C-alpha cells in the first residue's frame, strides 16, 4: 500500500479556468476537418444498403468517368494488407471465435453500412457524387437482427464460423445455486440494456499522408499510439516511420476508442496514390458505422434472507456484438462483471456471458463500457428486491454496504476494492433531497395527474485502467498493458512542457496536469504547457478512455515532476550550500525550509541546468527533464450516490427529470470544476440512454435511427440542472489518491431513472419498465397495469415498424423461486 504523500498544494484543488478554452471559444482550435494538407485528395466510402448479402459485382466505371475522380478501390485491391482490423482481447482459457473484419468487404456484406468500395478524388463534392455512381449488385442473404434469435443459429451471420456464438465466459465466486436454493426471497428479471450511440458532436475524420516512406496521420482518435502500432502491423511500415496526431478531438465517449476501417483506407490510398487523402465522416455514417454501445439482454437473479441480507446475485448476459468484433467488443460485459457486486457484500456471485453475432454494426466501448450495464442490472434489481421484501430501498442498500473499515476489500471475483465510504455519500445525497418534502409533493402532485417518483443508485466502478500485469496478455487477456507515460521538460527559461500519452478530447488535461506539475516544480500552471496526442513528440502512451487519464497519466506526470523536483532541490542545495533535505517548494520557489527568503526559482534552477554548468553539482547530468512510465499497482474504484426525481404525465406517459442529485467520490480533487463538468456530462449521457436514445434496426436489419432526427440526443430542454457534491476518500493505490470521474455519472445514471419511474408508477401496479422509457413505453406499462394493455407494444431490436415488438412493462416476475420461507 502506497502512502499518500502530503504535497504542497497551491494549484491542485483549485477550480482553475481551463487553459484549453481561449482557442476553443474563439474558433481557433484545429480539429481534423480544419486541417488542409497540400495536394490533399478526398475519399468517400460506398456502403452496403443490405444487412446481409453476397457481393455479385461492383461496377465503378460510372464513378471513374466523373472528372476529378482518381481511383475506386474494392476489397480485392486491398489484398496486400497484412492484418484485418484488430480485436485486442483473448483471455487465457476462453475460446473466442470472431470473423476477420477487413476495411473493405471481401465478397460479403454483413451489416448496413459495411464498406464495399472507396472513391478517391479531387474534392469532397465530386467524391460524394462518384460514390453514388458505383453500381454494386448484391445477392441478399437471410438476416438475423434479434440477439436471442441469433443464438438459435438458424440464420448465420458468418457461414464459415458455423455458429453465431463467439464465446462463453463464466466468472464467479461462492456458490450461487446453493445460495438461491437456501434463500428466503429470490427475485429475477429479464433486463434489456438497449443499443446506443456514442454520438460525439464531431464525427470521425482522418487525413493520411504517405510521403517518402513515412506515414503521417491526423485522426480524430482517443488512441493515437495504438493506431501507430497498428499501422506498423497492418501496413508493414516500421513504427519509427509512422506518426499519428490526434489534433483537437471533438468528443469521444468511447466512440473514438477504435481502430477504424477508414483510418486504414486513407493510409492505404495515400500510399497507393502518393497523395494525402482525407475522409470526414458524415453524421449519417457516424450513426451507421461508428461503433455502438451496450446492447445486451440480461437474465438476473438475486437472493436474500428475509432480513434483507443479500446472499447471491447471478447474471446471464447475452451480448449483441454485431456483425464483427471491434477493438474491445467481447471485453465489454467482462469489464462490468468485475464490479458485479457493486457497493455490496454479496458472497455468492456468478456472471455467465455469451457473445452473439447479428447483422448489425459492432458494439464496443461507449462511456462506461460494461459498467453502466452491470450497475443498471444490480441497482434496479436491488429496488425490486426491496419491493419484494417490503423494505425501504435505502435501508436495503445500507444493510448490505461494504463498511468503511472493510477496505481494502476483496470481492468474490478476487478484485480488491481500494477504498470506499458508501454510506456517507448516500447520506449526503439524502440530506440534499429532503425525502419527507418529496413524499408530500408526490401525494399532492398525484391529484393533478403528475406522478412524481424518486430513484436511487449507489455505485462503485472499476477504472484507472489498468495494472498492466493484471490486464495484459497473461492476465485479463488484453493485447497490451495499460500503463501511461509522461515526459516533463523544464526549458532554460523555466517554463515547462509536459508530454502525456493520454489523449484527451474535452476532459481538460492541459489544465489539470499543469496544476499537478506546477505545484511540484514551484511554478505557475500558466507556464506549464501540456502536449498530448502526437506520437512524434512524447513517449509511448495508451490514450484516454476508461476514466484512466488522471489516475494513470496524471500520476505519471506527478511522479516525473517529483523526480525533477528532487534534482532541482539538489541543484539549489548545492548553490545555497545547504542540505538537500532542507530544501522545499515554498511560495513559488525552491527555498530553505527555515529561511524561505533563501531560495531559487525554477527559472534560476533551469539556468544552472542548461546555461551555467558550474552551478551544477559535480557529476550531475545537465538539463532538466524526466521521462517516466507509471504502471499502477491496482485499479481505482470511485463511488457515489445519485438521486433522480421524475415527474410523469399520467395521461401521456412522458417522463421529465426534475431533479438530479449526485454525490460522487473520486478521491482528492485536482480541479473541482472539471469534476463537476464530468459528472454533468456523464449523467446527461445516462439520461439520454434511459429516456431518449436508442439505435433501432428493423427486422430487415435496416437502420431506422440513421440521423440526429431519429436518434434523439437530449437537448438543453430535456436535461435538468444538477445538484452536485463530493466526498473525498483517497485511493491508497496512487500517490495523488485520485480515482476517475469521466464515466461515473453515466454508470450511476440509468438505474436511478428507472427506479424513479417505477417509484412513480408502483401504486398503479407497474413493477418495471425497460429503457428507453419513452412516453409510449410508459403509457403502455400504465395501460397494461390498468388491464387495458392489449395494443401493440414498444420496441426491441429487429421488429417490424410500426408495431415494434414486445415491451416489458410490468412484466417481470417477482415471485420468489425456491424460497425456503
Amino acid at each position, binding site marked *: 500500500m502506497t502512502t499518500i504523500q502530503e504535497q504542497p498544494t497551491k494549484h491542485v484543488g483549485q477550480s482553475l479556468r481551463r487553459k484549453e478554452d481561449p482557442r476553443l471559444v474563439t474558433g481557433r482550435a484545429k480539429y481534423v476537418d480544419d486541417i488542409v494538407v497540400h495536394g490533399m485528395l478526398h475519399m468517400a466510402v460506398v456502403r452496403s444498403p443490405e444487412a446481409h448479402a453476397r457481393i455479385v459485382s461492383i461496377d465503378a466505371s460510372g464513378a471513374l468517368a466523373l472528372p476529378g475522380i482518381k481511383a475506386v478501390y474494392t476489397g480485392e485491391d486491398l489484398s496486400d494488407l497484412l492484418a484485418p482490423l484488430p480485436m485486442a482481447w483473448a483471455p487465457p482459457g476462453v475460446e473466442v471465435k470472431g470473423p476477420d473484419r477487413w476495411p473493405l468487404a471481401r465478397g460479403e456484406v454483413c451489416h448496413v453500412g459495411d464498406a464495399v468500395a472507396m472513391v478517391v478524388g479531387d474534392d469532397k463534392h465530386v467524391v460524394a457524387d462518384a460514390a453514388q455512381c458505383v453500381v454494386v449488385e448484391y445477392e441478399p442473404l437471410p438476416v438475423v437482427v434479434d440477439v436471442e434469435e441469433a443464438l438459435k443459429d438458424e440464420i448465420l451471420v458468418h457461414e464459415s464460423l458455423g455458429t453465431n456464438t463467439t464465446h462463453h465466459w463464466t466468472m464467479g465466486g461462492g456458490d450461487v445455486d446453493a445460495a438461491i436454493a437456501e434463500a428466503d426471497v429470490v427475485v429475477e428479471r429479464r433486463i434489456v440494456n438497449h443499443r446506443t450511440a456514442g454520438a460525439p458532436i464531431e464525427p470521425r475524420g482522418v487525413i493520411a499522408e504517405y510521403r517518402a516512406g513515412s506515414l503521417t496521420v491526423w485522426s480524430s482518435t482517443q488512441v493515437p499510439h495504438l493506431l501507430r502500432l497498428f499501422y506498423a502491423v497492418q501496413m508493414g511500415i516500421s513504427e519509427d516511420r509512422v506518426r499519428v496526431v490526434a489534433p483537437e478531438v471533438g468528443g469521444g465517449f468511447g466512440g473514438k476508442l477504435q481502430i477504424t476501417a477508414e483510418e486504414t483506407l486513407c493510409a492505404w490510398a495515400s500510399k497507393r496514390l502518393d497523395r494525402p487523402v482525407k475522409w470526414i465522416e458524415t*453524421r449519417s455514417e457516424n450513426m451507421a458505422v461508428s461503433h455502438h454501445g451496450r446492447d445486451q439482454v440480461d437474465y438476473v437473479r438475486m437472493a436474500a434472507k428475509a432480513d434483507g441480507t443479500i446472499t447471491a446475485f447471478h447474471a446471464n448476459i447475452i451480448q449483441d456484438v454485431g456483425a464483427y468484433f471491434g477493438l474491445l467488443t467481447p471485453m465489454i460485459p467482462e469489464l462490468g462483471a468485475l464490479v458485479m457486486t457493486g457497493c455490496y457484500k454479496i458472497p455468492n456471485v456468478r456472471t455467465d456471458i455469451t457473445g452473439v453475432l447479428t447483422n448489425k454494426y459492432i458494439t464496443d466501448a461507449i462511456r462506461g463500457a460494461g459498467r453502466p450495464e452491470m450497475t443498471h442490472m444490480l441497482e434496479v434489481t436491488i429496488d425490486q428486491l426491496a419491493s419484494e421484501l417490503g423494505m425501504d430501498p435505502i435501508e436495503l442498500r445500507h444493510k448490505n454496504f461494504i463498511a468503511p473499515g472493510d477496505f481494502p476489500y476483496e470481492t468474490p471475483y478476487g478484485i480488491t476494492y481500494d477504498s470506499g465510504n458508501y454510506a456517507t455519500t448516500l447520506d449526503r445525497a439524502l440530506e440534499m433531497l429532503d425525502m419527507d418534502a418529496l413524499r408530500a409533493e408526490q401525494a399532492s402532485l398525484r391529484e393533478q395527474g403528475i406522478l412524481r417518483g424518486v430513484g436511487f443508485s449507489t455505485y462503485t466502478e472499476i477504472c484507472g485502467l489498468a495494472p498492466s500485469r493484471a490486464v495484459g496478455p497473461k492476465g485479463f487477456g488484453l493485447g497490451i498493458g495499460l500503463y501511461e507515460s509522461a515526459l516533463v521538460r523544464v526549458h532554460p527559461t523555466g517554463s515547462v512542457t509536459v508530454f502525456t500519452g493520454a489523449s484527451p478530447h474535452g476532459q*481538460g488535461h492541459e489544465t489539470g496536469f499543469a496544476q499537478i506539475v506546477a505545484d511540484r516544480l514551484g511554478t505557475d500552471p500558466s507556464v506549464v504547457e501540456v502536449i498530448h496526442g502526437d506520437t512524434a513528440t512524447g513517449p509511448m502512451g495508451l490514450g484516454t478512455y476508461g476514466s484512466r487519464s488522471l489516475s494513470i497519466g496524471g500520476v505519471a506526470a506527478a511522479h516525473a515532476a517529483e523526480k525533477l523536483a528532487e534534482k532541482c532541490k539538489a541543484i539549489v542545495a548545492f548553490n545555497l550550500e545547504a542540505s538537500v533535505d532542507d530544501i522545499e517548494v515554498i511560495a513559488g520557489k525552491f527555498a530553505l525550509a527555515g529561511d524561505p527568503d533563501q531560495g531559487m526559482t525554477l527559472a534560476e534552477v533551469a539556468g544552472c541546468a542548461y546555461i551555467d554548468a558550474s552551478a551544477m553539482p559535480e557529476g550531475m547530468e545537465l538539463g532538466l527533464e524526466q521521462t517516466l512510465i507509471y504502471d499502477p499497482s491496482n485499479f481505482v474504484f470511485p463511488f457515489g450516490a445519485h438521486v433522480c426525481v421524475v415527474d410523469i404525465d399520467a395521461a401521456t406517459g412522458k417522463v421529465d427529470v426534475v431533479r438530479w442529485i449526485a454525490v460522487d467520490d473520486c478521491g482528492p480533487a485536482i480541479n473541482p470544476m472539471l469534476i463537476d463538468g464530468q459528472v*454533468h456530462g456523464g449523467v446527461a449521457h445516462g439520461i439520454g440512454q434511459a429516456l431518449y436514445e436508442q439505435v433501432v434496426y428493423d427486422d430487415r436489419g435496416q437502420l431506422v435511427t440513421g440521423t440526429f432526427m431519429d436518434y434523439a440526443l437530449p437537448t438543453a430542454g430535456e436535461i435538468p440542472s444538477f445538484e452536485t457534491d463530493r466526498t473525498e476518500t483517497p485511493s491508497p493505490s496512487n500517490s495523488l489518491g485520485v480515482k476517475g470521474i469521466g464515466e461515473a455519472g453515466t454508470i450511476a445514471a440509468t438505474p436511478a431513472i428507472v427506479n424513479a419511474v417505477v417509484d412513480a408508477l408502483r401504486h398503479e401496479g407497474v413493477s418495471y419498465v425497460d429503457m428507453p422509457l419513452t412516453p409510449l413505453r410508459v403509457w403502455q406499462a400504465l395501460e397494461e397495469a390498468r388491464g387495458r394493455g392489449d395494443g401493440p407494444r414498444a420496441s426491441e431490436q429487429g421488429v417490424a415498424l410500426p408495431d415494434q415488438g414486445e415491451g416489458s412493462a410490468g412484466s417481470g416476475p417477482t415471485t420468489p423461486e425456491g424460497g425456503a420461507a
Partner: protein
Amino acid sequence: MNVNGQPVESVVAPRLLLVHYLRDVLGLTGTHVGCDTSNCGACTCLVDGESVKSCTLLAVQADGADVTTIEGMASADGELHPLQQGFWDEHGLQCGYCTPGMIMAAADLVERHGPGPISEEDVRRGIEGNLCRCTGYHNIVKAIRAAADKMSEVPA
C-alpha cells in the same frame, strides 16, 4: 457578402453550403459541421444578425448578407465577447466542438430577449437547436445567463 465586417466576393457552385464556403473558401474553420439534418447546430452563425444553421443555407442564398462567425465575436484588440468570456469562466465547454455554434445561438437568444436577466427555462428553450454531448448543458446555461447579465450592464 460581408463576413465579420469584411467584404468578400466569390463565384461559387450553387450547391456549396454556406458552412463550406466559410470553412473551405474563407478558411474560417471555427464554424463546425456536426450533422446533416439541421439538428445539432454546430454550424450556427449569424446572418443579418440572426442565428442560422449554415449547413442548411446555400452560400448563394447569403449573397449580399452580413455574416458573423465565431471568429468575428471578439473585439479587434482580442477582448473576448461576453458570451465567450462566460463560457470560459463557467466551464461551459469541454471538447469545444459545439461551442462556436452554441455561442452564436446564444447571441441571437440574448439579442431577442433584450436587456435584463434571462430565466433558465428561456435559455434552455433558446438553445434547443444546439446539441452538446459533453457538458450536460448545466454550465452552458450558467454561462449564457452570466453573459446576458453582463451584456445588460452595458448601456445600449
